[in-house]
């Protein structure tokens, strides 16, 4: 039920509730709570929120190189001369770039696909930034591509598709190690993960 069904609600409040209700994971009750929270915010905070939403829609573009979301193209990572330009790490989502950067262990470049091949949801190769990846691979000089899609069925299918279509036989194609997470438990680990963890065992 939306606010417009409640008699006495102001039209502008109803509109805010409706707009918030369209966000993923926000139901009608959460939308109402958020709307009333925004009403109670100091004016400056509420305007800052509105300005942030407007600014992100006006200024954010795709980086012409890595397809990550950025204010200026090429993005900070692609234009940084200290980055290792011989390695490209392919990720599903802009949030994955942030996760990789938090590790401080990878200094190469990225390519963001903006999704994975998901046949059941009608997402095929044409809906992803795969054409841009294959064009990029045909013109840049790299030695390794790390396919860092999630180890899910759809992530693996996307990695296989990239492997099949990347069109170069002179670069090393790798994916991230599969195995046990820190804090995990052998007892609850599925057979595929445990097999891969065993295959990738390391000397201590």
């Amino acid at each position, binding site marked *: 039920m939306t606010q417009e069904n409640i008699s006495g609600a102001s039209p502008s409040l109803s509109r805010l509730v409706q707009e918030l209700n369209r966000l993923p994971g926000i139901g009608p009750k959460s939308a109402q709570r958020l709307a009333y929270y925004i009403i109670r915010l100091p004016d400056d905070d509420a305007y800052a929120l509105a300005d942030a939403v407007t600014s992100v829609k006006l200024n954010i573009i795709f980086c012409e190189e890595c397809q990550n979301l950025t204010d200026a193209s090429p993005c900070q990572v692609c234009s940084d001369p200290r980055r290792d330009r011989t390695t490209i790490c392919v990720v599903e989502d802009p949030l994955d770039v942030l996760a990789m950067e938090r590790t401080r262990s990878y200094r190469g470049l990225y390519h963001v696909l903006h999704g994975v091949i998901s*046949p*059941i949801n009608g997402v*095929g190769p044409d809906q992803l930034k795969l054409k841009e990846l294959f064009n990029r691979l045909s013109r840049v000089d790299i030695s390794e591509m790390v396919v860092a899609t999630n180890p899910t069925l759809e992530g*693996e299918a996307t990695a296989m*598709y990239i492997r099949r*279509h990347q069109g170069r036989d002179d670069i090393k194609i790798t994916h991230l190690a599969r195995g046990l997470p820190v*804090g995990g438990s052998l007892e609850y680990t599925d*057979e*595929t*993960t445990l097999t891969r963890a065993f295959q990738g065992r390391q000397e201590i």
Partner: protein
Amino acid sequence: MAPPKTYRCEAVILGYAPLNEADLLVTVFTRDQGKVRAVGKGARRSTSKLVGHLEPLTTVKMSMVHGRSIDIISQAEVINSFSTLKEDLTGIAKGLYLAEMLTGFGAEASPNPDLFQLMIDTLRIIEADPGSEMALRYFEYHLLGVSGLMPELYHCVECRDELEPGAHRFSPNLGGTLCLECGPEDAHLRPLSLRALKVLRLLDRSQLADACKLTIDDNLSYELKSLLSTTVTYWLGNEIRSNSFLEHLRNETLPEVYI
């Protein structure tokens, strides 16, 4: 007496969608309860005991708790992860095509052990031979059958006369094959060659493994694919979305380096 709060089941995972911060809304097809939607609490966290056990195209033993509006997955243990199938892109695409059809035809709180077994058997065949198209045709045909929509292949659905050898017509809407003399008004009516009718009858009478030994030419394969997927789509009421990726793989040309 109140029904038990928990139950165990054997299920094949059909798909999932993210829910809340770290949960998964999982769709499974169980042997004894039919299609079930359930929540895997915290299943998206890498340290969750459910992680890896809820991947699509996996058979699992599950413990579930009846929730007020939706069941909760309390435990899941892999029976068969079909790991070889998942190493092949065509195998994955075909498996997801089956999963989408089963999601569409499977009904909640409506046990259908034959349909469950058909899914498991077909996944096994595709795992052994990802190139097998006949396995998909067998699944489509028997999916209709175990759903109570088995097409009529031996008598004209209009005049009820036994079909003579020759070309016929087929209508998903009318429930099967028609002789050439009967010409009802039906937008779904399509030609059916004698060879295609013979293969459909073979699918009807054979076991899955035997049917998959049959090799047919491309024209006949296309006719059967078109006829059965049209029939499945007709009864589903919407397109099978994973079919377009499967077609993409069938039609693709690989870079020279892999040829």
